[in-house]
């Protein structure tokens, strides 16, 4: 069997904590190294080296990794402000590119990556939820004709993490166009980081581009977001080029505001009525004498509980009283990418698709700033 050599760019307290381990566990792949650009902060390089140590692989410079013939895939979890630079170097080196989400920190960077990928012979994919059992069920319902012609698509991604209720209730968010800064220790921009999932689902399910975006953002739950002047919630009202309507909600709502990890849901309205597909439905509910879920202690370097490593340190209690019946609710995004490398089939969400998601997100910020809909060009 041909093995794909994989280099993971990034480290702990990025999604590389899970992606690198997934690549390493795929028998078709071999994790060669963790790597990154030179000149990083001590914080970032230290966490990169820590991941390399945990995985038992060397830590290399990005250029050194790209020069190796036994490296076929770059798994890019560089901070989003550097993500485009790493992606372009990867494509220039003719390595397959697996991207963390969102694709880039600006529309211009996203287009540059997509244009470079279009002129290369390599495969690209961005991490999304399209391989999950519930998303696949929604797609199947459309393709089989169960829904009839789809008239509206509504998708939600509300992450149940962080300790809510800390924001000043008088806070009224005034949005402004993106300043290009997305990486903070305390919190993330949630329309950007969570909104990418439902927007990608709308695009994937409909197969068409978004035409018009109306955005709303809020500071509803967390002082950390408000202090950084970034939103903890975002919603978009969309019109697609096909004339269909769509909407998304996205955000971080707090550990105790959902019985599982959060609300991940697709609702389709078609000629045959309404159809709902969710991460946790159908499910069983369990009531017993075990203690109920308790709010975890807050990690000082990850108050929003973004990363598995810090969650492990704080010994989060499991949320296991509501269990979905379906297998595969977590998806198999990385395995699906490797499948495409083997088969030559186009990945379901390429960097070209992902670039459109960035267009929609940035239009959402622009719209929320102005209070007016924004037409995508």
């Amino acid at each position, binding site marked *: 069997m041909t093995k794909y050599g994989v280099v993971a760019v990034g480290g702990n307290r990025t999604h590389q904590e899970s992606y690198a381990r997934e690549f390493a566990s795929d028998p078709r792949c071999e994790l060669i190294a963790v790597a990154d650009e030179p000149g990083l902060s001590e914080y970032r390089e230290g966490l990169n080296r820590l991941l390399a140590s945990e995985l038992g692989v060397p830590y290399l410079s990005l250029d050194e990794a790209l020069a190796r013939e036994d490296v076929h895939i770059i798994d890019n979890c560089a901070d989003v402000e550097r993500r485009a630079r790493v992606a372009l170097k990867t494509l220039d080196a003719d390595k397959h590119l697996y991207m963390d989400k969102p694709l880039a920190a600006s529309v211009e960077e996203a287009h540059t990556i997509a244009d470079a990928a279009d002129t290369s012979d390599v495969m690209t994919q961005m991490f999304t939820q399209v391989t999950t059992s519930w998303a696949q069920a929604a797609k199947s319902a459309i393709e089989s004709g169960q829904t009839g012609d789809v008239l509206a698509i*509504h998708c939600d991604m509300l992450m149940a993490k962080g300790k*809510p209720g800390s924001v000043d209730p008088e806070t009224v968010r005034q949005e402004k166009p993106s300043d290009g800064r997305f990486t903070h220790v305390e919190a993330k921009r949630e329309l950007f980081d969570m909104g990418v999932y439902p927007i990608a689902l709308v695009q994937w399910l409909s197969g068409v581009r978004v035409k018009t975006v109306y955005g709303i953002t*809020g500071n509803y739950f967390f002082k950390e977001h408000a202090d950084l002047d970034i939103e903890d919630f975002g*919603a978009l*009202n969309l019109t697609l080029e096909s004339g269909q309507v769509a909407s998304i909600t996205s955000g971080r709502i707090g550990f105790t505001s959902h019985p599982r990890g959060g609300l991940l849901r697709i609702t389709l309205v078609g*000629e045959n009525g309404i159809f709902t597909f969710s991460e946790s439905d159908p499910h069983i509910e369990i009531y017993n004498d075990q203690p109920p879920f308790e709010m975890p202690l807050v990690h000082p370097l990850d108050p929003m509980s973004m990363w598995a490593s810090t969650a492990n340190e704080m010994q989060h209690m499991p949320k296991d009283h509501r269990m979905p019946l379906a297998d595969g609710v977590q998806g198999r995004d990385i395995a699906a990418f490797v499948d495409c490398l083997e088969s030559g089939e186009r990945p379901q969400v390429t960097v070209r698709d992902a670039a459109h998601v960035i267009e929609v997100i940035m239009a959402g910020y622009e719209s929320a700033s102005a209070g007016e809909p924004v037409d995508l060009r």
Partner: protein
Amino acid sequence: MSVFNFASLRNTVQVAIEQGQIGRPASLRLTVHGAGGEDNLQNLESDVRDLASAWFGGPSESEYVTGGKRGPSVIALKWSGGQSAILSISAGAGRTGGNLVLLGSNGAIYHDIDPVYSDNVRVVPNGGE
């Protein structure tokens, strides 16, 4: 009055809000598909707007609507205190029902508007479902 009777839902959620179970109501996501034609659609929209106004303490400050004209519509509402709602409303053939999420500052309310559970859906006297 639409096919769905939202009175018990409105009251029950209102009690939960007044008990402080979700903190300050912040954002409503409500998607519903009812049976019938344009008349039902208008009634459904009116009922759903009433729910949002009740839970956020009054009418919204601004709104943006897409769709409509017999097809599904999506209504985005904002209140002067920063609260928001996305109301997705349609009526027509096939399965009816929907879902609701009311996010509060430190809690959330979820509800499936499911015709299987007749407590939340009733048949209007002149037919409907």
